[in-house]
């Protein structure tokens, strides 16, 4: 009950942050604008349709990820320090509230806020793609602008479940990143935390590269250990971006649903460990 009460209050507070609203509105605006941007693309042939839809989806997912990363960073770095600045933490922890309940409630609130933001962006993204797919089908069936008989109409599905998996995988990234910055916020200042969080994301985004550096023949033993450790400890954010074919043109996943499940377990494990670490630190933190 206490955790839920703190979480709800956190959501109400977070959704009123102007900067988060700006990022959200801009991201949604850009996803919608991708409709007009796509007017220049060709949807009239089978090859053109699938390639152009791939581009649209990648653009939408990219926008969501970019806006969401900033939202996760801003939300995560301010989540606990703001309680200190506003001194709201004193009256809360003077009540029979266990410290783990406070941290868990704040984090759950952040996750719910991110879920709302991702949900709004995701719905806009999927609606945009569906809208465009319907338009493409109509265009393909038109006798004047249509494709060659038997080409194009069936090539673009109106609704593709992979879009949903893509949105979920993006949300999982936000979960992991916000848990990391929450942990850091108990140790570092807000500004340092923001840049450290961004650095962790950047390195995690290149985890395959970092991992391969660890296995490079030219690397010394120490360098190998360093890169291997880095790749193991930091979250592998690039694995969450598999559905984005612009980022991973060579990677083919047989079943994206199963891949999403696997990544969900990975994210939950990572978030749980980070949260436990945050709770252990906060138990001894003076407020």
């Amino acid at each position, binding site marked *: 009950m206490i955790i839920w009460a703190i979480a709800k209050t956190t959501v109400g507070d977070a959704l009123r942050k102007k900067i988060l609203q700006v990022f959200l509105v801009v991201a949604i605006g850009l996803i919608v604008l991708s409709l007009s941007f796509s007017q220049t693309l060709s949807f009239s042939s089978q090859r053109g349709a699938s390639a152009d839809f791939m581009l649209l989806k990648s653009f939408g997912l990219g926008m969501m990820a970019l806006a969401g990363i900033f939202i996760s960073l801003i939300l995560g770095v301010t989540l606990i320090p703001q309680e200190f600045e506003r001194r709201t933490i004193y009256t809360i*922890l003077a009540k029979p509230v266990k410290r783990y309940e406070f941290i868990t409630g704040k984090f759950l609130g952040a996750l719910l806020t991110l879920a709302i933001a991702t949900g709004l962006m995701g719905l806009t993204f999927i609606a945009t793609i569906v809208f465009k797919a319907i338009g493409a089908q109509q265009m393909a069936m038109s006798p004047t602008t249509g494709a060659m008989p038997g080409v194009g109409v069936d090539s673009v599905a109106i609704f593709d479940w992979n879009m949903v998996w893509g949105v979920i995988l993006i949300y999982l990234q936000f979960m992991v990143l916000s848990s990391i910055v929450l942990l850091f916020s108990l140790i570092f200042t807000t500004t340092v935390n923001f840049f450290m969080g961004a650095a962790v994301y950047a390195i995690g985004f290149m985890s395959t590269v970092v991992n391969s550096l660890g296995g490079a023949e030219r690397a010394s033993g120490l360098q190998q250990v360093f890169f291997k450790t880095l790749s193991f400890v930091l979250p592998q954010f690039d694995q969450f971006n598999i559905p984005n074919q612009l980022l991973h043109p060579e990677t083919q996943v047989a079943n994206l649903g199963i891949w999403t499940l696997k990544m969900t377990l990975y994210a939950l494990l990572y978030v749980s460990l980070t949260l436990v670490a945050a709770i252990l630190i906060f138990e001894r933190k003076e407020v």
Partner: protein
Amino acid sequence: MAEAVVVEGLCKEYKGRLGDRVMAVNNLSFAVQEGEIFGFIGPNGAGKTTTIKMLLGLLFPTSGKATVLGKPAGDIEAKERISYLPESPYFYEHMTGAEVLDFYCQLFRMDTATRRKKVPELLERVGLGKDGQRTLRQYSKGMLQRVGIAQALINEPDLLFFDEPTSGLDPIAHKDIQDLIGSLREQGKTVFLSSHQLSDVEHVCNRVAIINRGELVRIGTMVELLHAGRTIVTVACASAELVESLKPLAEHVSAEGDLIRLYVETEDSVHAVLDAIRGKASLVSVVPQRQTLEDLFVEIVREGRK
């Protein structure tokens, strides 16, 4: 009577910016009895808030120990029975007064039915019955303080920690806080009151502890702390001879027309003066001057600076 708060050799050391050690609280020991209104005063930076935060488990002592209602400071069971009103309390501004109180009620695991009954009662009790649906952004400082008081009364606490409860309040709100402390005393509650309003402390507290630079300087009841001051004896129509005979009994003598004022230090001297003037002059008044808490406080703080 049981002890509500026991502090034994409590110390809090901070690391300064230059790596030096700063003793915020140094070997503090005292006890607060149940049902007592206990004043905790000291200049800015004396360690009052640090001590309160240690008693609430928000800060951890470097050494020493503290118990609150028989439990170690910060214990969750004890927190069920205590409350805290910080100086200038802050709440989530986007919430209404009623929502804030509902939130704090949830922290006591109150169910929805209890909260629905409790919140309007609390709002009425602190005079915010008509403002409960306004967001805190629209509240004045005094109204926010009332919300603070309301959240401190949610659990009908046995022990209340008030840290500068009247800071920056207008006279009406100030009076309301005084009345509240008075009613809490009547209900047998224990109040740990830290304040710079020394007249309030002197007026409402049973006992007072004065700390300076983290150390306990004095503790006791008002009678124990404030010694009787001198007495001004005013007489009229006294002859020059009589005035001369009275001078050895008084610390200082002043004349204003027909009136002679004698500033007498001890009770024995007062009796001697009264015996001496009997039948020889008219007694106008005998006014004993008592030392105030403010006098004592200023004296102690100035001594500490030397």
